[in-house]
């Protein structure tokens, strides 16, 4: 019982994931600031933002559905945290069974649907537009993402992430076999996290803050937590599926190697967010269906031929 609690609350659970999301948000904002010749926030900024949001007055727009508005952030936070449990960190994950990759993928897309629901049930044109856009975007990036992420599973011949890791330690990182899959997975991750080139649902200059326009106080704090932890878990997932894990003796070395891989991924994401301009929703849909999906299908067929 005590061990379960430890897994749930401390190590791959809430506290560890929150600290990772804290570090992720700080590094992301600091890196973006340094790209833009700015000083950037101090290290404690993410915690300060959270405390500020939690102490802010929690407004509820008239006519909005209170129950749904409160339930959505909590549900998506639970979904993301449970996904965090199954994604191995430095090769270790408390629970692993055949098919946990599918569970993780499903849990990771719950926040996007919750974001759509938040937009639709909340009052106001901007939330409506933001919600509609997030659904449109969901279809154009989710299909290539799922196909790209199922590549490693096919190569390893199993749907359990631990198996995939084990397989990679024998045959070398799957990144070398399917670089295109890795690229598609990254684009899909940027779309899922609504990060900069694809932040169409929450484009500041078009729909103010998308679905979260009417959210304040604790609810908004939860939403920020969800977004950050979703980013952390998404990056862990891609690291495990494409770079795999070979244990290197003492745990300290393990943790530092994993940390370096993680930092490299954050650098990649921040550069992508600083380099590209935001697409229009119809351009993204065109890009998604005309280019990303055929590419991922091609990648899948290559992987299947390679695997057999």
């Amino acid at each position, binding site marked *: 019982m005590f061990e379960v609690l430890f897994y749930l609350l401390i190590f791959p659970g809430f506290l560890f994931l929150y600290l990772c999301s804290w570090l992720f948000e700080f590094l992301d904002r600091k890196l*973006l600031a340094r*790209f*833009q*010749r*700015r000083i950037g926030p101090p290290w404690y900024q993410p915690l300060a933002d959270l405390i500020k949001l939690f102490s802010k007055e929690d407004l509820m727009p008239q006519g909005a559905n209170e129950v749904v508005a409160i339930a959505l952030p909590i549900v998506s936070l639970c979904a993301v945290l449970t996904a965090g449990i199954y994604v191995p960190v430095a090769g270790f994950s408390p629970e692993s069974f055949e098919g946990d990759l599918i569970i993780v993928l499903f849990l990771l897309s719950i926040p996007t649907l919750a974001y759509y629901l938040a937009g639709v049930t909340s009052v106001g*044109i*901007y939330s*409506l*537009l933001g919600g*509609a856009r997030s659904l449109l975007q969901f279809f154009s990036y989710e299909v290539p993402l799922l196909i790209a992420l199922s590549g490693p599973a096919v190569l390893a011949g199993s749907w359990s992430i631990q198996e995939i890791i084990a397989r990679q330690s024998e045959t070398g990182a799957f990144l070398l076999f399917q670089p295109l899959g890795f690229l598609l997975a990254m684009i899909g991750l940027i779309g899922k996290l609504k990060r*900069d*080139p694809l*932040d*169409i649902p929450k*484009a*500041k*200059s*078009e*729909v*103010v803050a998308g679905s979260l326009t009417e959210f304040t106080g604790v609810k908004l704090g939860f939403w920020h937590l969800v977004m950050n932890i979703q980013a952390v878990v998404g990056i862990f997932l891609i690291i495990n599926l494409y770079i795999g894990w070979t244990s290197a003796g003492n745990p300290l070395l393990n943790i530092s190697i994993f940390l370096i891989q993680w930092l490299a991924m954050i650098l990649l994401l921040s550069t992508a967010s*600083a*380099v*590209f*301009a*935001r*697409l*229009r*929703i*119809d*351009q993204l849909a065109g890009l998604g269906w005309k280019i990303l999906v055929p590419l991922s299908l091609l990648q899948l067929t290559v992987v299947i031929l390679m695997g057999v």
Partner: protein
Amino acid sequence: MKEKITIPIGPQHPLLKEPISLRIDASGEEVLGGTLRLGYVHRGIEKLAESRTYTQNIPLIERICGICSHVHTTTFCYAVEALLGIEIPPRAQYIRALLCELERIHSHLLWLGVLAKHVGLETVFMHSWHDRELVLDIMEELSGGRVSHGINQIGGVRFDVDAEHHPMMADKMQKLHERITQFMQIFEREPSIKARTHGVAPLSADLIRQYGLAGPVARASGVDVDMRRDDPLPPYDRLDISVITHPDGDAWSRTYVRIYEIYESLLLCEKILQAIPEGNISVRARRKVPAGEVVVRSEAPRGEVVYYLRSNGTEYPARLKIRTPTLPALAIMPMQLAQIHVADIPVVLAGVDLCIACADR
């Protein structure tokens, strides 16, 4: 989701630096049209000007607009000097023209950042506003003020361009020249920017003529009009200006015209600095202006600004009418809103380069 909705881009919106109220009616992502309401920043400058003396009016007129303040005071001073019948020393004319061009560079760089921010490129916004500091430093060294310089007075200018300003200006302008070439490369090659600006909200040349538009938006549709060349104030008739136009008049050509105008203004600044004559920088002007009427036009960063001034022999202007370039640009905006997506609204607004403080006066 195809029923008609109205998107309020109200007085407070991340898109707007200054308050206007724009109601966009759209169905889904297609924009059908927009209605516009102004007047949130209307201070009644024309009425205020009638109860202040000519010298007191200069700081007032400088605060019509934060970005093109120098063009307003220059036009006003030329109008009063025409009524007084005095000619300001050539050195003062060149200094006024120098600051007009520096202000055009500053205004276009500011606009470049705003366009990049609206298209989603925060980094280019930060970089272009970082490079804009170079121009602001030059203006601050010359006049003590980054934006409202207070360098103009009736009869000339108050501060001189000393010998040690020249090297500082030359080196800062050289740095600016490299940065602009960098921006131009980014804007020409970056596929995501081209996707967002090419073919968006085109404006035909005869539509521009019907609305009486002059300035970068008109030049971007092929209308070859530039007040500095066609109806020049003193120093511009002695400088040759090449007017940049672009044929197809969409959001990309407006970007193209404005970026190349920064090059042109940099070149003009160098020409002015070489050709600046020696001599004093201001002439004594009487306080009471003899009765008369005058209309003066000049080229503000956004187009043609028209000043009508009537004096009745006292120290106070009898009537001052200011027509700023953003008014016709705002009139033409609903035409651009008819065939675009909701996501293109920021690009159209940035293309028009709104200066609401000018439009409302």
